[in-house]
């Protein structure tokens, strides 16, 4: 492929994009270095090494297991004759939508000693389920909630690969395992790597799951320090940002060594017959579903049911009604859908800069976008409030507006679309462009007729990641949302905090159902394209 200089317009768009995404990082730096605080002194004086080490260890373990689980699930559901594959494709992304503060609590309530699973297993002679906590508990629950970061982009990529290469390998005598390692894995490596990076960054920024599993990481220390010692909280957050930057750089240098495979589907993807493995594969997918979706949902349904039958027992009536659930659900869907669309619009130009033109502005923008994912949402919310206050008239205009909320969501979750969009851009073969240009297509026509059709599955997966993640977003929804804009997650949070568990359960079950519907819609749309 001939390297061309990036068009000036694209560079400007990329530059603006990276500036927008840099707001939270700049705010953090401003907070650390302008108020007379001494972040280095604070960090050296405090006990930061241990939580930092725990954070890194957890993030590595979760990344590893989520990468394997996500890839295996993607392969089983897209490339084999697994029974009910389409149904699984609808269900498997759902864990992405559990806000961890209630998802992990529900998981514990089902699986820990005395929980719902315990009651169910008693009749089978199993008396005590083990207590999930600490490193093992946090690792398990985060792996189960994070594998979709890998599953979605890898599944999209797998459905796009031509079967011809694999067929050739098989004809030339490779067994299916060798074919997977030598042919398939090399083609999906960049997708796995991009997804795993997100898992790593999410894990270091998570607070809900680690606190409920009682595994003391940096985010717990940050959370405890916000009011007591704000400079310490900001200094600790700076470590997260530096860690994120380092990981992004490492990932980039690793993927640079990977072979670049510009393949797209010229023949149908290979479909493998599972044969005698069919039951084992079904068991594997079903077990993942049971732990990642059914277990937390069971506790949520239990809470919700308590509320629905409480009237008959003469307890307090519910404080919500159907209208409130519908209002929150509508707000959730509309804001998440907008966030997904705008996130795609924001990161695709950057993906083009990096993927097609190897432009330096693009590479910087790419790193900034992705590293921002490691920052706790509350910092992004506060930073946007800070910048709108500092920017006078323009800020007043934006305050309390839907636009600012969507902007904040895009800054928070644009990273999710970034890696997948980049893989999508790279999967467009240069030869197709040359052919199109020879046939007289201009840039826009090439984009419409060549790029977008090839990139479509990747872009849809990227949008899906942003959509489902935005649906569960909490701090930005609380702090930045405009007047009269409750979302399902804000209602779940408020209810849960003040022990209105029935209301929290009902809203959370609604969240899961709505996300299943949206995921079904996304999967169907992709299937239509087959």
């Amino acid at each position, binding site marked *: 492929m001939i390297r061309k200089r990036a068009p000036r317009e694209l560079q400007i768009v990329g530059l603006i994009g990276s500036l927008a995404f840099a707001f939270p990082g700049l705010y953090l730096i401003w907070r650390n270095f302008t108020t007379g605080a001494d972040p280095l002194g604070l960090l050296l004086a405090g006990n930061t090494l241990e939580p930092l080490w725990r954070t890194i260890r957890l993030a590595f373990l979760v990344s590893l297991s989520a990468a394997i689980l996500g890839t295996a699930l993607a392969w089983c559901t897209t490339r084999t004759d697994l029974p009910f594959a389409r149904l699984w494709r609808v269900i498997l992304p759902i864990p992405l939508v559990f806000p961890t503060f209630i998802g992990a609590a529900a998981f514990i*309530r089902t699986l820990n000693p005395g929980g719902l699973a315990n009651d169910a297993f008693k009749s089978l002679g199993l008396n005590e389920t083990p207590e999930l906590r600490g490193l093992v508990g946090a690792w398990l629950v985060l792996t189960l909630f994070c594998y979709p970061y890998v599953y979605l982009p890898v599944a999209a990529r797998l459905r796009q690969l031509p079967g011809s290469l694999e067929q050739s390998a098989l004809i030339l005598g490779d067994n299916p395992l060798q074919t997977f390692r030598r042919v398939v894995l090399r083609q999906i490596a960049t997708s796995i790597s991009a997804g795993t990076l997100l898992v790593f960054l999410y894990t270091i920024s998570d607070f809900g799951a680690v606190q409920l599993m009682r595994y003391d990481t940096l985010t717990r*220390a940050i959370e405890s320090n916000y*009011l*007591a010692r704000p400079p310490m909280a900001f200094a600790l957050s700076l470590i997260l940002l530096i860690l994120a930057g380092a990981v992004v750089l490492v990932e980039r240098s690793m993927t640079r060594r990977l072979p670049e495979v510009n393949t797209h589907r010229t023949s149908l993807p290979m479909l493998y017959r599972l044969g005698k493995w069919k039951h084992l594969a079904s068991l594997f997918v079903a077990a993942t579903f049971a732990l990642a979706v059914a277990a937390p949902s069971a506790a949520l349904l239990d809470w919700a049911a308590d*509320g629905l039958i409480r009237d008959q027992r003469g*307890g307090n009536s519910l404080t919500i009604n159907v209208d409130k659930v519908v209002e929150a659900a509508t707000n959730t869907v509309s804001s998440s859908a907008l966030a997904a669309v705008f996130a795609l619009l924001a990161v695709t130009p950057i993906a083009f800069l990096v993927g097609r033109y190897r432009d330096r502005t693009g590479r910087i923008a790419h790193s900034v976008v992705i590293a921002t994912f490691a920052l706790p949402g*509350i910092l992004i919310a506060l930073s946007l*409030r800070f910048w709108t206050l500092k920017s006078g008239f323009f800020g007043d205009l934006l305050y309390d507006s839907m636009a600012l909320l969507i902007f904040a969501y895009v800054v928070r979750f644009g990273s999710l679309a970034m890696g997948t969009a980049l893989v999508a851009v790279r999967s467009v073969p240069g030869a197709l462009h040359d052919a199109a240009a020879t046939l007289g297509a201009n840039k826009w026509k090439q984009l419409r007729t060549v790029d977008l059709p090839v990139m479509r599955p990747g872009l849809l997966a990227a949008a899906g990641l942003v959509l489902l993640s935005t649906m569960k977003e909490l701090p930005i929804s609380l*702090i930045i949302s405009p007047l*009269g804009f409750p979302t399902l997650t804000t209602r779940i949070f408020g209810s849960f905090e003040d022990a209105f568990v029935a209301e929290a359960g009902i809203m959370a079950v609604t969240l899961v159902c709505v996300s299943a519907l949206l995921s079904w819609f996304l999967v169907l749309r992709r299937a239509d394209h087959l």
Partner: protein
Amino acid sequence: MTVIAASCGGSDQLEIDGLAAEINPAECVEGQGEEVTIYSGRTENLIEPVLEAFACATGISVQVRWGSSTQLALLIDEEGSRSPADVFLSRSPGPVGFLESKGLLGTIDQSVLDLVGEDSRSDQGSWIGFSGRKRVLVHNVDLVPEAELPSSVFDLTDEKWRGKVAIPGTNGSFVDWFTVFRDQYGTDVATQWLNDMVANDARYYPNNRSIVDATGRGEIEMGLVNHYYNYQEVAASGDSHRALNHDLDDSDIGSLLIITAATVLESADNSSEANQLLAYLLSESVQSYFTNRTFEYPLAAGVEANDTLPPLKALEIGSVDFDALGGGFEETARIIEASGIQNQ
């Protein structure tokens, strides 16, 4: 944020129903264009009907941002004098202390302050309590016989309770409680107690709710929490929830009453409406509503607590120097961090 408008465009009369109508059964008053903006750390499930009733009764339109008390306090700090908030409602004293230390709290009208006892308000008039939560020892009824239950938090360092007590070490209300503990008994005694608890294998849980849940399941024998979570669990699940509250001695620090506080911000544009709202929160109908809905203790003079609640003779947080909480916070956080409870 939610807007509860008293009147939309002049002729439309606000109508309320459900819980709000129970709080204010009277006809709604027409608005004169007054408004008030609230940042509420208490959930809308609880507060929204009250605000609707308030809008109806006074004609003042209400705007609310719901959130976590800590995050809203951080937001107010970030917004400073430009904060749109007039009133801040906090789930616990900590965030109020934080805002006070930043000089962001205004002074509440004396007539409003007088609605509660001196113990439940700030000497400087910067905050006022509107409901109370008592610290208790929640325990699993199948694992701990009632006769053996201790009468003081100091008993919990006994070998007998090794590995059996849950502590929400980093949770806001525990941090507040520990700060008062230091204030009452001196930092040395309080720190020693916490270190002894850690040495006695006290188990760390992140918050009250997770302890009540774990105690109900029998994962842990007992835990130090605010009283009302268990009432809510029992109200939701009945007898299948296997945990009950145990009150420690009335004079014990483990029986402290911790208040949820209302404040008017220094930067408030609508401080008259804000004071009216605070007075409304302390009106008899609203105080009764709180105690019957969430099983919290009412603080306004003359209002009876829900009849399932044990009579309140406990220490009240206001009887100690609550205003020192803000400043004492940093040191408390350091002591708790150093005790290592979060890794138990």
